[in-house]
């Protein structure tokens, strides 16, 4: 059994090794993408979820909060007792921004003509984070000019914006996890499905099916080299981001790599599913690109904020495995959280993997019975 497996993996490696162009793309792609995606896009954000800490609780602070609430940019998710509570909400990814209104907000304004508000933004996604910070500043300035009407000595509300998780506003904080998701999907799903379908097309699959090799062994042996290639790419992307982009890994490295391997297996099993329902390499490639690459790009939250999407797209985004992986990588790599926060996303990926595998095995058995 072991010898058969090794013979198969060796043969698979020859296929990959002989195809130098593809090999070059597989290893060059992550590097190129990391560099290209440094220039990310800016987008307007609607209905971002935020929290407010109101330590003043006077008439003016109420007015101010209502002003924020009234804007279409923000939904106030929760009112918190202290800024410390906000930290937990940030880590869970529930809120993007916190506005902290200091004690004596109203009386400071009346007696000293000036006061401050503190704005803490999650800028692990720098586009969203900074845009939201700017919106708050604009709303505050607007509010200030309203209450200044008829005043001789103008009131000033000074917003003090603090960036969380990504103080230097590095775009890398957002696109490194995105590139990881894309590269792993590309290698595992696209390459695996093409490799398996190629055997069908050339007729060698028949020979393999007639051999004593168990189908499970064929599939495992075919995906093993891609699993190894992916592991190499995970490491090279992480090395690039730490040493070239200067992006530290805040969380547990072993957890990050472990969950990346889980996502790799999800992608591999999706590739197997595609290969079990297609008969030509072109079809496999089309399905991989349409069914996977585009959704990964569009709906994972990597390029375009999911908060902004219409409801049907929001719902659809839940079906994209990369969305969950993207969240996990951001959470572990940038916010440094542990399993307690990301168990739900991990569970979803695991369930997806099991479903893909079950479907492809079922598909295989139907094929045996009906052909």
């Amino acid at each position, binding site marked *: 059994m072991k010898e058969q497996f090794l*013979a198969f993996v060796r043969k698979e490696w*020859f296929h990959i090794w002989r195809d130098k162009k593809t090999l070059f793309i597989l290893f060059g792609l992550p590097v190129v993408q990391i560099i290209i995606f440094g220039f990310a896009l800016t987008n307007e954000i609607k209905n971002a979820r935020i929290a407010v800490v109101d330590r003043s609780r006077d008439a003016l602070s109420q007015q101010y909060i209502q002003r924020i609430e009234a804007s279409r940019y923000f939904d106030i998710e929760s009112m918190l007792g202290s800024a410390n509570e906000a930290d937990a909400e940030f880590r869970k990814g529930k809120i993007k921004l916190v506005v902290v209104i200091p004690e004596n907000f109203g009386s400071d304004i009346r007696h000293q003509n000036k006061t401050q508000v503190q704005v803490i933004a999650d800028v692990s996604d720098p586009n969203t984070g900074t845009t939201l910070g700017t919106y708050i500043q604009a709303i505050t300035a607007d509010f200030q000019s309203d209450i200044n009407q008829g005043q001789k000595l103008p009131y000033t509300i000074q917003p003090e914006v603090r960036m969380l998780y990504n103080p230097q506003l590095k775009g890398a904080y957002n696109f490194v996890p995105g590139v990881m998701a894309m590269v792993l999907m590309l290698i595992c799903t696209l390459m695996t499905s093409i490799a398996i379908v190629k055997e069908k097309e050339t007729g060698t699959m028949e*020979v393999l099916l007639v051999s004593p090799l168990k189908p499970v062994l064929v599939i495992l042996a075919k995906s093993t080299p891609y699993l190894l290639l992916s592991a190499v790419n995970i490491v090279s992307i992480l090395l690039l981001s730490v040493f070239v982009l200067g992006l530290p890994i805040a969380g547990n490295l072993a957890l990050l790599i472990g969950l990346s391997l889980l996502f790799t297996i999800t992608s591999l099993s999706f590739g197997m599913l595609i290969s079990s329902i297609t008969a030509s390499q072109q079809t496999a490639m089309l399905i991989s690109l349409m069914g996977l690459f585009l959704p990964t790009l569009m709906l994972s939250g990597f390029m375009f904020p999911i908060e902004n999407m219409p409801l049907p797209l929001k719902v659809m985004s839940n079906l994209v495995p990369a969305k969950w992986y993207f969240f996990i990588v951001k959470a572990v790599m940038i916010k440094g959280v542990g399993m307690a926060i990301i168990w739900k996303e991990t569970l979803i990926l695991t369930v997806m993997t099991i479903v893909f595998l079950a479907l492809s095995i079922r598909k295989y058995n139907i094929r045996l019975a009906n052909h």
Partner: protein
Amino acid sequence: MKNPEKHYEYAITADALSKHFGDFTAVDRITFNVRRGEIFGFLGANGAGKTTAMRMLCGLSKPSSGEATVAGYDVAAQPEDIKRNIGYMSQKFSLYEDLTVTENIRFFAGIYGLSDAAIREKSASLLRHLQLEAEKNKLVQSLPLGWKQKLAFSIAIIHEPKIVFLDEPTGGVDPLTRREFWEMIYTSARQGTTIFVTTHYMDEAEYCHRVSIMVDGRIAALDTPAALKKHFGAASMNEVFLQLARQATRQAD
């Protein structure tokens, strides 16, 4: 792990073997026996059902009804045992074009569980027989078609199977190479291997010990080429085949 050597009279038996796809009956109650060491020609027009029948015998497809045994094992219940005892070469190429000759030999010998020592010995004698020693490190895609097919056949029998299934093995090859190919088949049959072969070439049908001709999913005729020609009053197998094929009502696929 290995089952004790099974004793069986016929290499292949089929008893009312059928395969339905929905309403369509691809193979309709075919019954025949193939003796050990026999070269059995399995003929039929495109769409007559021969590929489906062959897939069932190889354990690639489950019969809808009827029974069949290969090397003494039941096709429905023991496909894994069958797979260990058969070799297979399909009409499309059974070799990896982007692997060298040696790598192909090693791979196929490897998946049949041959030991490293056996693989070395086998591949050396195989290369010698085929006079491919000079080409052993060349990619298969650089070899002429005829050589590829001879290599594919040699690899299909590298694990010394009891029965070899050849699905139109000589498609697209010149007559001389086909002749050489059939000499290899004869050698292999003399050593006790049963050969089950489908072909489009009627001159090749003459080389078989016995021939069956499928029409519309049924076996329309089964005998030695000489007896068939006599029965149909024909001068060649080609005439026999045409007489039978004209009865077909089913369209080729």
